[in-house]
Structures are given as structure tokens and as C-alpha cells.
């Protein structure tokens, strides 16, 4: 390790400082929203004028907001279930079986991650209007499931990949059928991975804007609603308060998802 330590001593003093500055750069913009949400002024700038919670209070009066929230919850829950189911099935196949087209289908399901979202949005709009589906919450659910499948596949291939097959074989040796072994051994072990998929997909869908913007028609999701409000300066303090709440929810969900992901990693790691 001597070379690594030589390097460390040279750059070592600068790197931690850079790391701290970089993390500050990452977090600063997100921390600004909560800061301004408690500021007693319609102007989003310094100096701060005083503390208030009125922007949060007046959120309750906006009925359109609650409709949008309901839409977002429906879309996020259903698309998380679809993406997690599809992603879990294919991940099990990729991790456990050898069959033709295995790598091809793995590549195909990761494609939505690298496609520009605007392309997915307009092409789905053309398709859905072309086949007469129109633009409804249903089409947003279809699109969000598509977008979140890659996240589920990367979480679940790693969960199944680390799963010790001998556990399942042991269950079968002890008299369980294939389904019994799956239900009583495999699923409980990878369950934290599945929960983590559900939470991550939910978060991605809940925050997604472009696809919903093109495909939600007359039933806006929360980000689409926020977009419509951002244009009116008078509404901005409300938007900031709402945004702060959303960031809080996202971070909470993420912490829970990370907790489950780690548990999944601990449960599935093969004993050496």
C-alpha cells in the first residue's frame, strides 16, 4: 500500500476538501427550497426577511393540488407494481437460467435508461393517439413502468445474482416442491430487494415530469401541476413549500429503500 499512501499524502490533503465542496455543490440547491419556503417574502432571494409557515398553510386551500397528488399516487403505485413484477421475473431468469437471447433481452430492458426522454415521450404520444388510447393516467402508468423497469432489473439481477442456489436446493431436498421452495425460501430472501424496487420505482415515477407532461392529458400529475404553477410569480412561494415537502418525502422513501437494499445484500450474500 506504500504507493497508494504516497499518492494519498500528496493529493491527500486536497482531495477531502474537494470532496466536501463537491457534496456541498450537490446539496446546496436542494437545501435552498426548504430555506425559502419559510421566508416571509414573495421574492425568492436574499436577504431573508422573516420566518413564516403561511406558505405551507395556504397549500391546503388548493384543490387542484390534491387532485394532482391523487393522480401522482395512483400512477406511482401502479407503475411501481408493474415495473417491479416484470423486472423481478426477468432478473430471476437472467441470474439463474441459461437460454437463447438472454443477453439480448437483458440489453433490451435496459434501453429506456439511455434513451432521451423526449424521444420516448413523443413516440409514445404518437402511438397512444394512433391506436386510440388517448392521453390519460393509464398511458402515464404504461410510460412510467417502461421508464422504471431498468432500475428494477439492475436491483433484482444483483439480488438474485448473490442468492445462494444451495438454499433452494436444500429446501427441495427437504421435500418442498419448486413453488414451495420459491415461496418459502427464495422470495423471503430477495424480499428486501423487491421492496427496494417498489420504493425506487415509486420515487422515480412520482418525480417524473416529461413523460407525464406529454401523456397525462387532462389529469395532471404533481410535477405537471407544479410546472403549470412555476410560471406565475405570485404562486412561487407555494410551489417552494410544496417542493420542500416533496423533497422530504423522496429522501424518506430513499432512506427506507436503502435500508432494504442493504438488508437484501446481507441476506443474499453467499457464505464463503
Amino acid at each position, binding site marked *: 500500500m506504500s*504507493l497508494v499512501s504516497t499518492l494519498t499524502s500528496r493529493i491527500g490533503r486536497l482531495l477531502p476538501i474537494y470532496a466536501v465542496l463537491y457534496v456541498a455543490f450537490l446539496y446546496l440547491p436542494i437545501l*435552498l427550497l426548504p430555506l425559502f419556503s419559510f421566508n416571509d417574502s414573495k421574492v425568492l432571494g436574499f436577504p431573508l426577511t422573516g420566518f413564516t409557515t403561511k406558505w405551507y398553510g395556504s397549500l391546503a386551500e388548493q384543490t387542484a393540488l390534491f387532485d394532482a397528488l391523487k393522480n401522482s399516487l395512483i400512477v406511482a403505485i401502479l407503475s411501481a407494481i408493474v415495473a417491479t413484477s*416484470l423486472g423481478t*421475473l426477468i432478473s430471476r431468469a437472467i441470474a439463474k437460467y441459461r437460454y437463447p437471447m438472454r443477453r439480448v*433481452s437483458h440489453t433490451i430492458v435496459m*434501453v429506456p435508461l439511455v434513451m*432521451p426522454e423526449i424521444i420516448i415521450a*413523443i413516440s409514445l404520444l404518437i402511438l397512444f393517439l394512433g391506436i386510440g388510447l388517448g392521453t390519460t393516467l393509464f398511458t402515464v402508468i404504461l410510460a412510467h413502468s417502461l421508464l422504471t423497469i431498468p432500475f428494477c432489473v439492475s436491483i433484482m439481477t444483483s439480488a438474485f445474482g448473490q442468492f445462494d442456489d444451495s438454499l433452494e436446493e436444500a429446501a427441495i431436498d427437504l421435500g418442498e416442491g419448486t413453488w414451495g421452495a420459491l415461496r418459502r425460501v427464495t422470495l423471503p430472501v430477495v424480499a428486501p430487494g423487491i421492496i427496494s424496487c417498489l420504493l425506487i420505482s415509486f420515487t422515480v415515477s412520482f418525480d417524473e*415530469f416529461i413523460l407525464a407532461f406529454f401523456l397525462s392529458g387532462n389529469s395532471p400529475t404533481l410535477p405537471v401541476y407544479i410546472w403549470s404553477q412555476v410560471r406565475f410569480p405570485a404562486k412561487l412561494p407555494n410551489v417552494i413549500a410544496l417542493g420542500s415537502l416533496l423533497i422530504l418525502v*423522496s429522501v424518506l422513501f430513499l432512506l427506507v429503500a436503502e435500508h432494504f437494499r442493504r438488508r437484501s445484500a446481507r441476506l443474499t450474500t453467499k457464505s464463503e
Partner: protein
Amino acid sequence: MIVTKETKTGLLLSAPATLYVLLLIAAPVALTIAYSFWTQDFVEVRREFTWANYAEVFSDPLYRTLIFRSVRIAAMVTFLTVLLAYPIAYYIAFNVKKSKALWLFLVTIPFWTSYLLRVFSWKIVLAQNGVVNSALLSLGIIDAPLDTLLYNSEAVVVTLAHAWAPFAILPIFVSLEKIDRSLLEASKDLGEGPVRSFLRVTLPLSIPGIVGACLIIFIPTVGDYVTPALVGGSDGAMVANMIQVQFGKANNWPLGSALALSAVVCVTIAACIVVGALKLLERSLK
């Protein structure tokens, strides 16, 4: 051909997801390609093959400028994001000993919060009475607030470099983490200094991570809509904003489709050039 049970189960389990993605990617993209060769005739779309939309995209200076600017901005974003992220990935891979997972988690949290809101916060950061101006004023570096921070392509580049950070850190970290530490030892034993070791061992071995980061940032960034719309102004407008206009107010879907596909083709060509250049660099460093 004998179909084994394993083959059958494998295909059966992977079919739903694969078909779902194929159906919702291939079919719509095929339709978009078809649209790009049709023409808008007031409310109707005339389904006759024509190159006219592509001719318009590449001859009209407005569209041409938007496409090339989008590719340029995406390239700058990719470069800046990788440049800023490399030291962090290096720090986590080599200097952080115990809490690597915690650091990785720390740098990915902001990514999971609403993209729309993050971009919006940058608007506050760069505004006339925003964070940057307030800080510079109170430090006495400037006398009057700068009004050039917002509504230009630089604002777009900075905002996107912030948004994409984890996508650069993670792949570079993975490739750095994989490097066999004994190679660095060997390099030292052979009398190389730390800088030369970095240039001849660490950097070349981390190029796969850099390539991964470039691809995952460069291509999607070309089609970004929110950032140019919120902080770009007219000088920072990108192709996605025009595509949205064509699918919305202008109601010319064929032209919008041609714009979208032209942008994708241009960015793919540019991405191939970047990846090729990185591969050459990798070979020349080794």
C-alpha cells in the same frame, strides 16, 4: 431442436418484460420514423413519403442551430460532469476506507429528488438576488449583482452537470475500485512517480468507467427539456423545446419527429467519435 426445461423457464420469465419494452420502444419509434417522412396538412397528416421535413431541419438556420447547440451543450455537460466527478470517484475508491457505501449513498441522494425542483432551485441560485450574487456582493468581489448568470447556455451546462453527477461518479468509481492495487505497487517498484503511475496505470484502467459515464450522460442530455426551458432563456434553448412546440402549439408532428430523430442521429455520431477518441487515448497511455 430439443427445448430444455431451463430454456423454457428462462424464456417464459424474461418474455413479459422484454416484450413490454420492445412494444413500447420499437413500435412507437417506428411510428415516429414514419411520421418524420410524412407531412402535416393543416389538421390532417398526409401519409406520402417525403424528405421535406429533414430538408427543412437541416436548411432552416433556426433548427440547425438548435440541434448543433444541443449536441454542443450535451458535450460540454458530459466533459464538465466527468471532470468534476473523477476526483470524487477517486477519493471514494482510494481514500475512503470504511464508509464507501455511505459516501456513494450520499452522492446519489440528490439525484432521487425531483429533477424539476432541482432545476428550479438553480434558478434561485443564479438569480439576480440569488445565492451566487449575494455571496459575491457580501465578499466585495462585485459592486452590483451580475445579471448574466441566468438565461444562457452556461447556466444550462452548470445545472445539467449538477443533475447528472451520480451518473458519472458511479461508473468511474466501479472501474477505479476494480483496479488491482498490486499493479500500483508494481508501478512504484519499477520506479514510477505517483503522477506517472496515475497516468500510465490508474487513468487507462478507469477509461471503461469514463466511457460508460459519457454514454449515459451525453445521449439523454441532448433531449433535455426542463433545464433549457427554466434557466436557458432564448440563448440556451435546446432542440427538445422546439420539439415540444411542434407537438404542441405549432401542431406539426412530422416536423417534430424529424427534429427529434435528427438530434438522436447527430448525438449518436458524436458519441461514437467521443468513445473512439477515448479508446485511442486508452491505447496510447498503455
